[in-house]
Each structure stands twice: as structure tokens, then as C-alpha cells.
């Protein structure tokens, strides 16, 4: 029996279980990042009195190393806010808020790049500011930001390998556990790296395909 069979194939269920946890964390963190990023961006642009707070949060989320963020959300937030209650939730939140800081800036750039005339055209046919935002500004912003949004998802996937430090049992956690059981890192870690590379590659490919298709549809030049 080769090492590959013993250490990888026979452990496939453990690795798969870990991978599914990784996927789950990444999807939840991504949802938090997109929604949170849009909220931070909107507050920063349109809610004057809260703008300094939004800027502070964006800069704080972006400037904190993800390792510190994970520790801080997992061990400090429950003491101060009584939340999150599980390490899994803490992992999702920490990954999500960090990316929300980056996406907030991506969205802001997208919104500011829309010509003023597009909004004026909306106002001139009697649309209200919320209608103009929802129907004209938001779709164009998401379209323009699509590549960055996908890219941010891949960042989340890569950062998610650190959630094992707060004992979340993701793919990296399971891989490290197998290594410590068998003392055979070569095959296990190589396959683990391969899974991450494949995952990130597939996500990037899907994102690029989607972005190209949208650009083609709207007659914009391919990136």
C-alpha cells in the first residue's frame, strides 16, 4: 500500500469533511463581506454624521492582520459583546469583516466612477434618489466591481486556512491533524495544497467567465 493510498485516499472522508467546512465558512464570510462592505460604503458616502465611524471601521478592518483579527473576534468579542458564541461563527465574522473593509473601498470606487449624467438622467425623468441608486448606480457598480468581488472571495479562501488556530475544523485543521497522527507531511500537505489551488482556480475561472459574459452582453471591452 503506497503512502498516497494510506495517507490520502483512505483519509478522503476526513479531508472532504474539512473541505466542506472550508467552503461553508468561505461562503458565509463572503456574504458578510459583500453586505457589510456595501453598508460601510453607503454610510461612508451618504450618511454624513456617521462617515468618520465608517472610515474608522474600514481602515481598522483593512489594517488588522487576519491572524490578529481571528484571535480578537474569537476571544475578545465574546467578553465585550457576549457574541459570537462559537469559534465557527467567530471565524466567519473575522474573515467577513476584513474583506468588507476592502470591498467597501471597491464599491466606493465603482460608485464614484459612474458618470454624474447617469444619475441626472434618472432625476430628469422623475426618479427618486433611492430609485436612481437601486436601478442605475447599484447594478453598474456591481458589474464594474465583479472581478474585484471574485478576487476578494479567493482572498477569503486563502485566509480561511488560519481558522484552524481558533480550532475550527476546516480542511487545514484536518490535514494538520492527520500529519500529527502519521508524522508524514509530504503527501497530506501536498494534496491539501492541491485542493486549495484547485478551489481558488475554479472560483477565479468561474468569476472571469461570468465577468467576460457580462461585458460581452453589455458591449463593454473584455478585461
Amino acid at each position, binding site marked *: 500500500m503506497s503512502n498516497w493510498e494510506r495517507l490520502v485516499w483512505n483519509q478522503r472522508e476526513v479531508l472532504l469533511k474539512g473541505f466542506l467546512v472550508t467552503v461553508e465558512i468561505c461562503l458565509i464570510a463572503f456574504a458578510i463581506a459583500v453586505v457589510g462592505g456595501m453598508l460601510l460604503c453607503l454610510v461612508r458616502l451618504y450618511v454624513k454624521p456617521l462617515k468618520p465611524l465608517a472610515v474608522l471601521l474600514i481602515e481598522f478592518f483593512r489594517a488588522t492582520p487576519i491572524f490578529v483579527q481571528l484571535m480578537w473576534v474569537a476571544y475578545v468579542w465574546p467578553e465585550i459583546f457576549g457574541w459570537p458564541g462559537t469559534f465557527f461563527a467567530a471565524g466567519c465574522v473575522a474573515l467577513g469583516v476584513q474583506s468588507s473593509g476592502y470591498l467597501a473601498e471597491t464599491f466606493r470606487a465603482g460608485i464614484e466612477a459612474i458618470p454624474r*449624467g*447617469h444619475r441626472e*438622467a434618472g432625476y*430628469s*425623468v422623475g426618479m427618486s434618489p433611492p430609485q436612481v441608486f437601486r436601478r*442605475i448606480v447599484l447594478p453598474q457598480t456591481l458589474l464594474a466591481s465583479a472581478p474585484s468581488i471574485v478576487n476578494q472571495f479567493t482572498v477569503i479562501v486563502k485566509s480561511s486556512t488560519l481558522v484552524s488556530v481558533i480550532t475550527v475544523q476546516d480542511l487545514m485543521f484536518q490535514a494538520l491533524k492527520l500529519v500529527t497522527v502519521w508524522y508524514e507531511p509530504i503527501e497530506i500537505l501536498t494534496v491539501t495544497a492541491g485542493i486549495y489551488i484547485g478551489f481558488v482556480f475554479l472560483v477565479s475561472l468561474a468569476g472571469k467567465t461570468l465577468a467576460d459574459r457580462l461585458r460581452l452582453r*453589455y458591449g463593454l471591452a473584455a478585461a
Partner: protein
Amino acid sequence: MHVESGVDAVPAIRVVDLHKRFGTLDVLRGVSFDVRRGDVVSMIGASGSGKSTLLRCINRLETPSSGEVYIDGEPMGHRGQGDAKARSLAEINMMRRDLGMVFQQFNLWPHMTVLGNVIEAPIRVRGMSRREATALGEECLARVHLEEKSKEYPARLSGGQQQRVAIARALAMRPKAMLFDEPTSSLDPELTDEVLVVMRELAADGTTMIVVTHEMGFAREASDRVLFLHNGLIEEEGPPSQVFGAPKSERCRQFLSKHVQ
């Protein structure tokens, strides 16, 4: 040409002593004029004379510093009938739908099809059903001779076609008047004609229009009245035959000698 009785005595658009300051710069310094229903008024003048600002003040994309604009006798800036309270943004939005605006840069929404651009406001603002709005949209696109392009996206159209879609989009709100802000200035010369043809047809149909333009041919042939603006004031005004044929103002004469071949 016009019967000055009853309802028709109220001008479609009345501008009274309009001033607009940007910081220390006086762009409009007291402009007053009336546009009767069905009239086409062309505004000419050098760059920086205040033409575009005047047009943008009429539908309140710019807020005038003072003065008032009346649409069918209704003041834009405050509630009428002795109520001097300023109108809310929502009320101004309501009134804006009566003024169709066509921009120099077309400003079509690139993520919507041609038809989508045209029916957006009828659906969202007028509350029409999609079916109703589509029928209306196709009718408006036919008026600008683009019915076959309804499913295209704006980026696939020429500048002239885009501007005609923008005209159809404004028409779809069935406005009381159309405002054109240099509609052909960003078009290649060979594309301006198709836009001017549509504008002449609208004028012939009795559409009330204010047109800021550098197209002296259009101003001369298609308008009922021409205003020449200089330094934020109306320097010369009258029927095209008079403004182009025998201008009283020296500045107007100089301007025309430079711009009319």
C-alpha cells in the same frame, strides 16, 4: 399661429428673473422669458454664456440662486397659491417628469437595453405595467426611427442612435416640454443630421421645446424664437428672421458672423 385665449394664455414655461451664482461667479444675472405651448425656442451664445446652466435651472438639476420657473403656471421652487414654502425634493421630482431632458453626453444607462432605458421611468415613476410601458416604449422608439434596435445595448449603437434613444426615453414620460442641452455637440458631423431630423419632426408635431444649440441652421429654420445669451443675460431675442437677419445687438452680430457661414 397661437390662439391667446383661455388655457393657452398660460405659458408652458415661464422663467422669471433667474439668477445663478457658483461661488463668486455670476452665471445667470436675471433671465426672464416665456415659452408658449408648441413653441420651439433656441438658445444660442458663446461657451460660458450661461445657456446650459439656464436649461439645468429650469428642471432644477441646478438650484437657482433666486428667481422662479413656472411650468404650466405651477412654480417649480415653491408651492403656489401664496404658499412660499420651498418644495421638497419629492415634489420637485414629481414636476421634473413633465420636462424631458436630452443631454449632450446622451447619458443612456449602459446596463439596460434600448427598450429598458425607455420604459424604466414609465414603469418606476408612472407605475405602468410592463406591457403598457413596452407598447409605449416601442411607439417612442418608432418616433425616433429606432424600433428595430429595442433589444440592443447602448454601447452597440452609434452616437446619433444613442442620442435618439435618449430622446425616446424623454418622450416616454409624455412631458409637457422637452429640453435639449447641446444634443449634437458630442456627435461627429455626419451623425448630427439624424438627430436634427428627429428634432425637426418633434417641432413639426407641436412639441414644446427649448434647445441649447450651436447648430445655427436648426435654430434658424426650426425655431419660433431665438434667444442669444451673453454673460448670463438675454442680449437679443426674437423670431429667427430678426435675430439672424437684423440683430440689434452688436455682440449678437459678431457671434453670428463667426458661427454662420
